[in-house]
């Protein structure tokens, strides 16, 4: 079957899922869709831009807190509050990204981590606004969307449109320019591509969609906590993208599916062992499967790092 055929099949299966599955699994699927969006947005940077951020939790958290604060402190309804998620996260990504894209490789990763820790600390300490350690509770969607099936469809629609938008970006001339920046920044500059501007635009887009994932998660979870910005959260999209395979656009979505199912299976039995399990998987994947699980099925080998510095 052609890829389009597979895609149609998956969409159909997701559409009829509420008829067959109990609410618990719908919630699991909702979570998978949200993590999938987060990882896909992250992978725009890692897979297509060759930039690995260690601080994407910052944009996820900004996107979770912005609409939660609007609903909580200003009484704005969900549908009007949710767009604040990508806007605020995108603004944060623009501010931080302006500095971050000036660095490369390891230093890029470290500066993004530093900014994320600043966001975490501000959220953690600014009790008057964010509730600090206690987080913000009771951030539920309106009654119409409150049932697991309704929120599932809502999430699926938002995630679906976002993924299509990201796909269009990847396939656009901008997307191809971004790939050339990944492969060889200096040659890209020679043919007239403004490398930093392309990197910054990709960073902002990635941050904005990560924020949207954060916003969706806030209303799914019913509460937001400073943990959303903690550095362990930043590794979630990284691990998911890595599991799925960073060289393919849909890899992170597949990775999110595998990751969440595995998490559910393991934590149901032995909650304490989950980090051990996750850590072991990460190590095994890195040592043995450099292209992720999708790479096993067949994906083109792809250099993770430009071999020439010049």
């Amino acid at each position, binding site marked *: 079957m052609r890829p389009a055929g597979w895609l149609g099949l998956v969409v159909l299966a997701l559409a009829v899922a509420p008829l067959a599955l109990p609410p618990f699994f719908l919630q699991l699927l909702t979570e998978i869709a949200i993590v999938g969006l987060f990882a896909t947005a992250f992978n725009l940077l890692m897979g297509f831009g060759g930039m690995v951020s*260690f601080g994407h939790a910052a944009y996820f958290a900004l996107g979770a807190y912005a609409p939660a604060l609007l609903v909580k402190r200003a009484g704005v309804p969900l549908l009007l509050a949710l767009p604040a998620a990508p806007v605020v996260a995108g603004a944060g990504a623009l501010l931080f990204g302006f*500095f971050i894209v000036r660095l490369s490789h390891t230093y890029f990763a470290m500066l993004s981590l530093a900014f994320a820790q600043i966001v975490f600390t*501000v959220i953690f*300490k600014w009790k008057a606004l964010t509730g600090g350690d206690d987080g913000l509770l009771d951030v539920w969607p309106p009654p119409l969307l409150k049932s697991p099936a309704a929120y599932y469809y809502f999430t699926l629609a938002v995630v679906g449109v976002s993924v299509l938008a990201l796909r269009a970006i990847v396939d656009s001339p901008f997307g191809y320019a971004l790939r050339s920046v990944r492969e060889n920044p200096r040659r890209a500059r020679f043919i007239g591509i403004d490398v930093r501007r392309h990197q910054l635009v990709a960073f902002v887009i990635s941050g904005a969609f990560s924020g949207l994932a954060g916003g969706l998660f806030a209303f799914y979870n019913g509460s937001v906590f400073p943990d959303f910005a903690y550095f362990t959260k930043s590794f979630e999209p990284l691990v998911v993208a*890595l599991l799925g395979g960073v060289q393919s656009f849909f890899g992170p979505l597949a990775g999110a599916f595998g990751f969440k199912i595995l998490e559910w299976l393991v934590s149901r039995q032995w909650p304490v062992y989950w980090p*051990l399990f996750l*850590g072991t998987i*990460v*190590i095994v994947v890195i*040592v043995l499967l450099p292209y992720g699980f999708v790479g096993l099925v067949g994906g083109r080998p792809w250099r993770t790092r430009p071999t020439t510095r010049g």
Partner: protein
Amino acid sequence: MSGLSVGMLLFLVSVGMSLIFGVTRIVNLAHGSFYMVGAYLMVTLVEVLPDRPWAFWLALLLAPLGVAALGGVIEIGLLRLIYRRDPLMQLILTFGLILVIGTLVLLAWGPDNKSVSRPEALAGSVRVFGQPFPSYYLLVLGLAPLVAVALWLVFYRTRFGMLIRAATVDREMLGALGVNVSALYTQVFMFGSWLAGFGGALAAPTVAVALGMDSDVLTTAFVVVVIGGLGSFAGSFISALLVGLLQSFGILIFPAISIVLLFAIMAVVLIVRPWGLLGRPEE
């Protein structure tokens, strides 16, 4: 004063991290975990050893050696397989190690906080400038500079140190000259782990030995190493003292933003001098 001793402990941890980066080019995110294992080993050793005055000192000697052994196993078993890979993959692998070591520590020692009692001779406090000051901190203040001096001697007066310095400048050339670089990597990694374990063991009587201490010390050591310059020995020393003092005074003067201040300084350093105050730009 306590800021100085915090700085000294930070120095032990961050210089190990910096050393490992300088030679192997791996940013070891599991370094905080090594520190935590050092502290937990100290807990167990003090419990297990007979209740004699020398037991504490023997434990202080043995715990870091245990951590060095752990480091050796990890280097030979895992890191050796991925030196040629993307540095970011190496970073992610060491992150995986944080999760694994964290869970293993939880399983081995349980979720409750532990404490190590200070040795009798140093249990009291002394007056420094009219302020009471725990005498154990004097040990920290005394030992850490001693280690710093010893490290300096190792780096600049021994063959091992010469090889380490050579490796930070040009590893391939060192290998071409007939030095067994692979063995050197293992030794350096074990030495760096030993330093982290020593920091943890030395810190154990001053803090609650708890599960979160790996990420706490990691983030701070990370800031220290980045500000001082990855791979720079003197840079780690200066910036560890700076960060230790900043943390102690920051909490007194403006508690709410002391950590933000720390990361803000790190961000500024990364933007202005990505290679740190005393580091070298990447070739």
